[in-house]
């Protein structure tokens, strides 16, 4: 069964962590838009997308992420990604997402990048 995306926002210092659970598909559009809106309303300048090893992300979901990256770019926000499985690191790389958001393996490294 398709599992609806769940995103919770957690502020860590000046970084807004998007904690992303369950599937990321074409159906995740509204929830990503809302999460971004909330973060942006709070004046966020640094965003960390936190995924989990067992995430299922398909091309429809990647399209949603690309739209999010487009918004962060327009609004001069920095953005990093953490927690992806090796498979999805490879996929994000193939698609070119890594040109616009660096991918880290540990939270610490990602936070350091955004802080620095």
């Amino acid at each position, binding site marked *: 069964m398709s599992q609806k995306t769940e995103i919770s926002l957690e502020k860590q210092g000046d970084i807004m962590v998007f904690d992303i659970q369950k599937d990321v598909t074409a159906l995740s559009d509204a929830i990503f838009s809302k999460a971004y809106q909330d973060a942006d309303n709070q004046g966020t300048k640094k965003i960390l997308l936190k995924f989990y090893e067992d995430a*299922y992300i*398909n*091309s429809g979901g990647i399209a949603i992420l*690309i739209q999010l990256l487009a918004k962060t770019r327009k609004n001069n926000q920095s953005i990093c990604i953490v927690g992806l499985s090796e*498979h999805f690191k490879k996929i994000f790389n*193939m698609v*070119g997402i890594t040109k616009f958001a660096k991918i880290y393996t540990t939270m610490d490294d990602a936070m350091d990048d955004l802080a620095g």
Partner: protein
Amino acid sequence: NKFGYERIAMECSASFARIVGFLPDRIDDLKTAVSEACLNAMEHGNKSHPDTRVVVNMQYRDNVFSITVKDHGDGIQKLPDYIENPDINKKIENLQTPRGLGLFLIKQLVDQVEFNKMTDEGHMVRMVLKLTG
């Protein structure tokens, strides 16, 4: 469809590939390719009609795993350049739709793919992964 037929196909193909000896990273490639092919079959091939079927067939022989995904559609029409060559820069600049990555991923992830094989039952995509080493 409402139960995520692409998930079922994904999990089945993963079990199959695991049993015949594929390594986890290849199985992940297969899962993504199968899921994209099924989503396309449902969305573009069968145009999301509820009584249409997507039929998935898997076979393993001589170290070659092949999987076909059939839909009732007319096949893939001539594709615009943004599908053949997706460009992330253009997608980010909103000069190209962010969609259209499914076929691209399938081509990248499997060893061989044939689209537009037409059969009595409609359109078929055939993907092949080779077991190496």
